[in-house]
């Protein structure tokens, strides 16, 4: 992959295939789905953050005119049913089911308790008010450090700390402890001439997708369950439904409709099993929609965290040791992204001596869900702020300090694995040369900050089928739901192989009955892995069509070659035929050609980014304005540069929101007091400048076109970059997210 390849389709900017449907309002998203005889479901949620459920009486709701069915945890297969064949997995399954409907305890405000199906959504809502629930209210635990105290109220009486196979005896809120150790940490700090140690706190934030969760379910009389919904992974939904409902996958079809944003938050299921239970109970199709408050209070945010970072370096800038403790809030059930945070925290740097401890801690908040590079942003806020402080202390330019210590091919990541070819250094160099970084920065209360970030990216399973049409176009069938233009980026890879224009590919995302297993759209994997599958499926088409050409020309298959969309004979006969013309001859040469591929590629390659931001601080109000933003990122190879830029710009802006204003604000009872788009303040377009996205291309050796996933890493650097810019502007180090106006006023000593 060292030579610069010339491509016909890759790197161009065609109109996305689903674009016209989406600009005309014709695209069908989950909530848009209509079906005859539809009932409407509504979920009753716990008003308490921590409470034992004493009793639930649904009789008044059932008697309400228009109500067709009410379900509670009683309608889920019981834990005993599951315990039989799942062994240890049953504990996780109990958590999974309890998050659908609380069975014994409500563990967060908004925890689902019961649901009603009625003839219209207003009646369902009225009926929810008629469900009588008796609670024994318990004290909530709302913060990770508080939850780790020995005398903290306990969420799960059976939960003990697991630490790689070892478990403690005592009930605790610390679900697990993990550790990475490299070299000799004490020796590393002994060698250091400058050591900086700081504590960081980050708030609970939400993915903030604009489309609320939705699901429509129907059971046929033969027991076939169909679920229409928006999701990041139809097969993941099928798996979770099968486990929660104890129902065979062969009887479940999940139809993914268009999805209105996910960012990791539409992987876990919430109301999909509820719709299925209501459909089963009523014998009718049932649509369940969340409202915005449900989304904030009942679905996974990404967790708050408490992080300590200690880094030591020699005077020449060489980092000799780095140590961290990461405590992440898992929410009500174990499973925070602390593992990913631990993997990423020092990943951009080649450091000899490292010690990383991570803690997964349950608290009375919604079960955390993945959010774009889960855990990495929390971790980078700490690391990149300390690296900035180190640079200042050492009197070295912060970009230079990163260049001196930045990880390269062959370096060992702190958690063990060795890096293949990566592009971190290239992102630093691109930032250094960018006119933004070289421009003047000296105005009063203006400041410039930089920060870098890493995300490991994943591969996993993808399947693609290609049907060749007689007019030389192809129908490409895939299982990856398209959140940000992946129909185009996948189609373009098949088009490149076949030498046809992107417009000659008709990509379709299909249901779980119609394509091979495909993992979720997440982990920055879709353009990489499903694109790889499209590449391989197209290669399969080429192979089969070579045989057709051979048949046509009566030559041996080995004597047919394919290049630039033309099949030609290489031995003896002077024959040539285009892909398009040969497509027209398929029926005469043996019938349809169907290419297929299923992949689980192992070379996702890591993604790195370096960001530069200019801010202005209003020192009277504590408000921070973003003046200019430049993000450099290694995309490996940008298939559709516009959508790569879009991923970068979108990730940056989510990071800006996280940095400045977004957070779950709780009262003492554990109620989120800002569960609306009014008061959970995501950036509007008036809060932002244009975001300059600079694509660096260091091809990934693990992909035929060099693709690296691009979706997640752009959210990692912004909070640290902005914190560093605020420091540059007013000389104050902010160590708590969000860096909201009141926190700035406090830090400046104005209040």
């Amino acid at each position, binding site marked *: 992959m060292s030579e610069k390849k010339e491509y016909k389709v890759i790197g161009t*900017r065609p*109109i*996305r295939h*689903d*674009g*016209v449907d*989406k*600009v*005309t*309002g*014709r*695209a*069908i*998203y989950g*909530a*848009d789905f*209509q079906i005859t005889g539809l009932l409407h479901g509504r979920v009753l949620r716990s008003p308490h953050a921590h409470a034992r459920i004493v009793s639930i009486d649904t009789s008044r709701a059932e008697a309400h005119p*228009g109500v067709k069915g009410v379900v509670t945890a009683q309608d889920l297969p019981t834990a005993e049913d599951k315990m039989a064949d799942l062994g240890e997995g049953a504990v996780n399954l109990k958590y999974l089911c309890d998050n659908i409907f609380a069975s014994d305890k409500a563990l967060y405000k908004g925890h689902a308790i019961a649901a009603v199906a009625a003839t*219209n959504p*207003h*009646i369902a809502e009225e009926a929810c008010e008629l469900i009588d629930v008796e609670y024994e209210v318990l004290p909530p635990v709302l913060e990770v450090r508080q939850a780790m105290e020995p005398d903290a109220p306990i969420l799960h009486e059976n939960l003990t700390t697991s630490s790689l196979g070892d478990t403690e005896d005592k009930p605790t809120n610390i679900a697990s402890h993990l550790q990475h150790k490299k070299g000799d940490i004490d020796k590393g700090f002994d060698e250091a001439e400058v050591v900086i140690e700081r504590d960081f706190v980050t708030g609970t934030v939400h*993915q*903030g*997708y*604009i*489309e*609320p969760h939705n699901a429509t379910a129907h059971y046929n009389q033969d027991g076939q369950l169909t679920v229409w919904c928006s999701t990041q992974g139809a097969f993941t939904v099928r798996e979770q439904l099968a486990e929660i409902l104890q129902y065979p996958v062969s009887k479940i079809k999940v139809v993914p409709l*268009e*999805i*209105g*944003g996910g*960012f990791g938050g539409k992987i876990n299921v919430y109301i999909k099993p509820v719709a299925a239970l209501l459909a089963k109970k009523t014998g009718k199709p049932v649509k369940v*929609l969340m*409202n*915005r408050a449900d989304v904030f209070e009942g679905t996974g945010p990404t967790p708050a965290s408490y992080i300590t970072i200690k880094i030591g370096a020699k005077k020449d800038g060489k980092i000799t040791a780095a140590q961290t403790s990461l405590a992440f809030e898992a929410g009500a059930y174990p499973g925070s992204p602390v593992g990913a945070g631990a993997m990423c925290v020092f990943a951009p740097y080649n450091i000899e001596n490292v010690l990383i401890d991570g803690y997964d801690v349950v608290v009375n908040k919604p079960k955390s869900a993945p959010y774009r590079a889960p855990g990495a942003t929390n971790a980078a806020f700490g690391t990149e702020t300390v690296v900035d402080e180190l640079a200042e202390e050492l009197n070295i330019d912060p970009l230079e300090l990163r260049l001196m210590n930045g990880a390269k091919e062959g370096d060992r990541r702190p958690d063990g694995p060795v890096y293949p070819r990566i592009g971190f250094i290239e992102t630093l160099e691109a930032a250094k040369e960018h006119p933004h970084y070289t421009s003047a920065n000296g105005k009063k209360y203006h400041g410039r900050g930089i920060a870098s970030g890493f995300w490991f990216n994943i591969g996993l399973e993808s399947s693609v089928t290609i049907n060749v049409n007689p007019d030389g176009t192809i129908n490409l069938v895939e299982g990856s739901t398209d*959140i*940000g*233009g992946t129909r185009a980026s996948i189609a373009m890879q098949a088009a490149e192989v076949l030498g046809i224009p992107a417009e000659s590919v008709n990509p379709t995302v299909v249901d779980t009955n119609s394509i091979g297993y495909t993992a979720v759209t997440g982990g920055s994997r879709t353009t990489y892995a499903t694109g790889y599958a499209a590449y391989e499926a197209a290669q399969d088409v080429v192979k089969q069509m070579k045989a057709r050409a051979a048949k046509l020309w009566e030559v041996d298959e080995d004597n047919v070659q394919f290049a630039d969309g033309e099949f030609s004979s290489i031995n003896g006969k002077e024959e040539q035929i285009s892909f398009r013309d040969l497509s027209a001859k398929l029926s005469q040469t043996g019938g349809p050609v169907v290419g297929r591929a299923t992949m689980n590629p192992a070379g996702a390659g890591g993604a790195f980014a370096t960001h530069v931001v200019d801010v202005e601080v209003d020192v009277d109000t504590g408000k921070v304005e973003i003046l200019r933003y430049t993000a450099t990122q290694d995309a490996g190879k940008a298939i559709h540069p*516009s*959508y790569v*830029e*879009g*991923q970068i*710009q*979108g990730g*940056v*802006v*989510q990071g800006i929101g996280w940095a400045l204003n977004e957070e779950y604000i709780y009262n003492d009872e554990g109620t989120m007091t800002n569960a*609306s*788009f*009014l008061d959970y303040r*995501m*950036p*509007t*377009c*008036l809060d*932002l400048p*244009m*975001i300059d*996205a600079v694509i660096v291309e260091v091809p990934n050796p693990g992909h035929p076109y060099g693709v690296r996933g691009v979706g997640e890493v752009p959210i990692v650097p912004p909070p640290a970059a902005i914190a560093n810019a605020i420091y540059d502007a007013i000389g104050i180090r902010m160590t708590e997210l969000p860096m909201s106006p009141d926190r700035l006023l406090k830090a400046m000593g104005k209040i």
Partner: protein
Amino acid sequence: MARRSHVQTTINGETVEFLCEPRQSLLEVLRDELHLTGAKEGCNNGNCGACSVILDGRLVNSCLVLGVETEGKSVETIEGLAEPETLHPIQDAFLENAALQCGICTPGFIMSAKALLDNNPNPTEHEVRYWLAGNLCRCTGYDKIVRAVLDAAAAT
């Protein structure tokens, strides 16, 4: 169930009659009664703009209008914007600029942009950002949306 009222209104130039309860918003009527699902529900309280439509020439959040209030009025929705064979210039500009990712906010942004350009055919970048501040997008960072609207203004 509360009594349903008969309402006659004009939607995308066509006279439309429907029955609705007073508590049903224009958004619910469009989506559930008339199956015009281009307007989306993102927040149902006027803070995301995904349900933006034009009511008697003025941009509104259809979640904050009652269906019964539209008696005798004229409603423009995303479904009425394109000609049978050509897209509206704003729609073209959104496609050319890759100004959408998931697309859920797109109909609202396009209707909002249309109201802007009807009102101010040559807006500055700041004017575009100010006008569109009531429309939330979580995917794009707004960069390409703002460029698309500026491009559409230049094209018309």
